[in-house]
């Protein structure tokens, strides 16, 4: 449809309605393309001072700064001129004359704004939730939880997993001999070394235990065996802590050592707690064993149970010792000091 095909009454009617709705203001620019030659329309709505012939158009309207003079036509949609006034600005260049048309689009803009605000709020909220999950569970788990691919129920699921405990040695003494802020700062830089490798090896941080952490491997499907994942996380933790300690020594600062225990075996994974406060947990004999091994590990030492070492084929590589552990009995324990 073109204007020429419209019957005059129809054209006049549509034009009148649109002109009323858009409440246009126009400015004709002088030959220099910068000063106002004449103007018309509902100017009082658009500008704080009425446009006067001879005045600078950019002085009248900040939005025009840098745009004048112009020698082609272009549009600037949805320019907010005042608190509740949005206009489309049409710069029209015809027959060597420049015109500026300001058309009120406030209602349409505010309606779109409401939709946009809701959409943006939802996207930001989702991203924030993703970041929070990412922080506590690692990116891979967070993505699976967000997309519903990882679920646990209260009945529990039996699975072979590896459990790793890591802890700072002599931290109680350090805590008692230093200012609380120093302790907190120190704890955080060691935690950074301990937690990231766990997340990098598809581990889940089950809990942070003051000066250490408990992590489980094998909950997420992986082509790599859970014991291997736990062991590679342990090596990376040791490497990072050694690098940190080297830096601290260079700066003449106090350094701390860590110990790690790893156990592999069947466990029940599930959710425990009341309806309003629930937590993921793993239950199994090897979990207690891993905890005991971590407690026995010396500075810079990784202690593993037999199952872990057998899975890794390291039984001939690492030295073994028989330990009598209270409540568990006699166990063969393998030691590695990277």
């Amino acid at each position: 449809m073109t204007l020429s095909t419209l019957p005059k009454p129809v054209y006049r009617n549509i034009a009148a309605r649109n002109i009323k709705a858009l409440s246009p203001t126009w400015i004709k620019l002088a030959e220099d393309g910068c000063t106002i030659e004449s103007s018309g329309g509902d100017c009082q709505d658009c500008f704080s001072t009425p446009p006067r012939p001879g005045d600078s158009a950019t002085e009248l309207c900040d939005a025009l700064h840098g745009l004048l003079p112009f020698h082609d036509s272009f549009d600037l949609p949805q320019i907010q001129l005042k608190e509740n006034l949005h206009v489309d600005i049409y710069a029209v260049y015809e027959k060597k004359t420049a015109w500026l048309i300001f058309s009120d689009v406030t209602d349409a803009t505010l309606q779109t704004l409401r939709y946009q605000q809701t959409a943006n709020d939802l996207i930001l909220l989702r991203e924030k939730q993703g970041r929070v999950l990412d922080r506590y569970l690692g990116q891979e788990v967070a993505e699976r939880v967000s997309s519903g691919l990882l679920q646990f129920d209260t009945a529990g699921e039996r699975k072979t997993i590896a459990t790793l405990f890591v802890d700072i040695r002599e931290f109680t003494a350090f805590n008692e001999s230093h200012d609380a802020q120093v302790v907190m700062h120190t704890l955080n830089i060691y935690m950074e070394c301990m937690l990231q490798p766990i997340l990098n090896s598809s581990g889940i941080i089950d809990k942070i235990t003051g000066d250490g952490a408990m992590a489980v491997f094998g909950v997420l499907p992986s082509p790599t065996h859970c014991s291997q994942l736990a062991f590679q996380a342990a090596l990376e933790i040791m490497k990072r802590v050694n690098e940190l300690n080297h830096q601290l020594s260079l700066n003449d600062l106090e350094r701390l050592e860590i110990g790690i225990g790893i156990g592999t075996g069947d466990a029940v994974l599930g959710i425990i707690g009341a309806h309003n406060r629930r937590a993921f947990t793993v239950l199994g004999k090897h979990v207690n064993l891993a905890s005991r091994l971590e407690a026995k590990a010396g500075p810079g030492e990784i202690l593993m149970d037999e199952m872990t070492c057998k899975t890794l084929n390291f039984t001939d590589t690492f030295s073994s010792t028989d330990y009598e552990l209270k409540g568990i009995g006699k166990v063969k324990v393998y030691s590695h000091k990277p």
Partner: protein
Amino acid sequence: MTHKDQPSMIQKKVCILGAFGVGKSSLVSQFVHRKFSEKYLSTMGVKIERKEFSVNGRSINLMLWDIHGEEDYKQIPTTYLRGASGIIMVVDGTRRSSLEEGREILAGFQDELEGLPVVIMVNKYDLLDEWSFSSTEIQTLSEGGPPVYLTSAKTGVHVEEAFHKLAEELIRP
């Protein structure tokens, strides 16, 4: 006194670009009005603010075009950049994706932005604990590229410095 009476006053149009929700409007509000609101309000189209200040002994009047952030930068009309003298690119330090979106915007408007000075603001420095960039990545970002400022529209930290840096670039002969 009007601007016409001040021949030495330099007026420049500066466009503020970046993904939605990175804090473009808040940074402008902090710089122009020294105000910050916790509530996130989307911008539609363009909101223009002006700020006069002195830099290196010269008066400058910046017309700040606070351009709405789109999920798809291609929906931002290129005419918004017409007549611009400088660009502020805003990135949200807590949202890694906003850096890539910022880069896409700069690349998408390559023709319009050619030769214009750019300053990058990595915003929300007050939420440093939640940042998704490491200090090494920030360092890499600032090496050999536009100046990078770690800003907080909330506390105002480095906001003025970043705008002043761009203003210095704009008055450079």
